[in-house]
């Protein structure tokens, strides 16, 4: 392939200017967007009182903390931490399970092909969406106030935080079912129970399980920090160690969290890959 001669390019530029430069209005709009973006960024940085001096001073202090963390050492609390970690896993597991069980009927209610009322469907979906706006930690704080300190509050917080998202995902899974197996079962003489068991369930179950496993993964992550507000698990130990300036043990707990989360992720990814 040979390059087009320069004269050719000049001619093309004259005859088709729109191919070489965009219209002025578009350029102006882009500039305005970038200007707005940087103005907002500058305003944000000013608001949070960011300055290079502060950053450098903080980084110095952070460096000091890191030297204090090395080497990570469990002290004599190793078994205590292991137990707290198990508690974290248990909270994530039970919370996810309860959320999934509660979300199952809600998912059927929210599915367009089960309840074909448009208004009902729309408002229920918005309701599901709205609850995502609250972070799990806020739920934990509320449940600690309501039912007292301990892992039970954590289980409830995880369950409540996830129910609405599960409902939405389940509803979508149910909506995406193929009609053909359902009709096939019905055509060969199956009743409603057969249709559910043989037509709908095999399509929906793997999708739901995959969602549940995925949320279990992410709940293990969030359960590690719920303890900070007193909802049990490893987070309580971590925030205690940081509060009393025991950085070696804090670093050890962070490492424990890293390892546990990676192991859970790897296992759950395996199972999910097998499911779908």
């Amino acid at each position, binding site marked *: 392939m040979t390059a087009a001669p320069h004269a050719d390019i000049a001619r093309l530029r004259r005859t088709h200017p729109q191919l070489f430069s965009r219209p002025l209005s578009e350029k102006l709009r882009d500039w305005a967007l970038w200007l707005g973006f940087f103005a907002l960024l500058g305003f944000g940085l000013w608001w949070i009182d960011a300055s290079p001096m502060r950053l450098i001073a903080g980084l110095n202090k952070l460096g000091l903390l890191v030297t204090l963390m090395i080497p990570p050492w469990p002290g004599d609390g190793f078994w205590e931490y292991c*137990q707290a970690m198990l508690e974290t896993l248990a909270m994530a597991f*039970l919370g996810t399970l309860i959320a999934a069980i509660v979300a199952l009927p809600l998912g059927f209610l929210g599915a367009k092909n089960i309840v074909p009322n448009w208004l009902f469907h729309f408002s229920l979906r918005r309701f599901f969406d709205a609850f995502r706006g609250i*972070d799990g930690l806020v739920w934990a704080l509320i449940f600690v106030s309501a039912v007292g300190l301990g892992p039970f509050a954590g289980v409830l917080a995880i369950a409540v935080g996830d129910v609405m998202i599960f409902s939405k995902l389940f509803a979508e899974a149910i909506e995406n079912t193929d009609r053909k197996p359902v009709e096939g079962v019905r055509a060969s003489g199956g009743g409603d129970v057969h249709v559910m068991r043989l037509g709908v369930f095999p399509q929906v179950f793997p999708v739901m399980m995959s969602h549940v496993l995925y949320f279990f993964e992410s709940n293990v992550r*969030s359960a590690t*920090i719920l303890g900070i507000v007193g909802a049990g698990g490893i987070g309580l130990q971590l925030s205690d160690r940081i509060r009393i300036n025991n950085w070696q043990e804090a670093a050890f707990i*962070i490492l424990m969290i890293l390892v546990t989360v990676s192991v859970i992720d790897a296992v759950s990814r395996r199972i999910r890959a097998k499911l779908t």
Partner: protein
Amino acid sequence: MSTLPPTASPMRPSTLDERLTSFNERYRQQKITHRNWTILYGALFLVALAGSVFVSDFSIPKLVKGLPMAWNYIVGTMPTLTLENFWSDLAEWYWGLRYWLRLLVETILMGFVGTVLGGVFALALCFPAARNLVESTGVYFAARRILEFCRTVPELVFALIFVFAFGLGPFAGVLAIAVHTAGSLGKLFAEVNENVDPRPIEGVRAAGGNWPMIMRLGVVPQVLPNYASYLLLRFEINVRGASALGLVGAGGIGEELYVAIRQFEYTDISAIMLLLILTTSVIDITCEFIRHRLIGHSLTQSA
């Protein structure tokens, strides 16, 4: 689960009867394998369930006792709104609106600045973390591990440590968000990079471009819409996360919520939560709209 034995005889079974028996045999074996797997998974599940119940000392009586308590608490946070003087009741409920709005703006700004800073770091790290764009395995490995570390340590743990190092307030919170965002966005960006079409890259290389030029001219134009989409998604998540950071003293509306919950100022709790829900819904809907505009409907649905 492909443990089907090949048919025993070297000759193909020809009669209908033989074929049927061979099919039945294989079907039976499939069923047995399937049932065994189901039993194994079921047993694992039951063990996990029993273990969890034991460790977290969760029990049905406790649930039965605890749920009404939680419900009473939630009902207790509801304000008394009467129809006669609705507006004055509303004003009383939202007595601190101006202060809360200020904190809400701070929360959104924290999410925004954190996303931008994290995005910049992610952008710097995502090219070396993509398998197809770097030759040296060491660089790839190091970039991947850094991203993994930033992503796996929870945002709140970073916030706890940063509050010590940088002092109380939103600055520490923004940095915590930025570090965590760099980790998760970097991974997503790197995955986008790994799926780019290699032909433009080869084109730039053939025309004599060096590594930064290849990235700028061969890769970035292909991946920019996906980057923008992920950034917007992350912004939504970060605003939600920023609202929780206040609980450890890292700025935003979480601080006020923490005070309200700890001091049992019931109606304040519901007022702030409602504000939060409204804000995040508006941001979600806006971002979703922009995302659809950016990369088209079909892409967002499949992703």
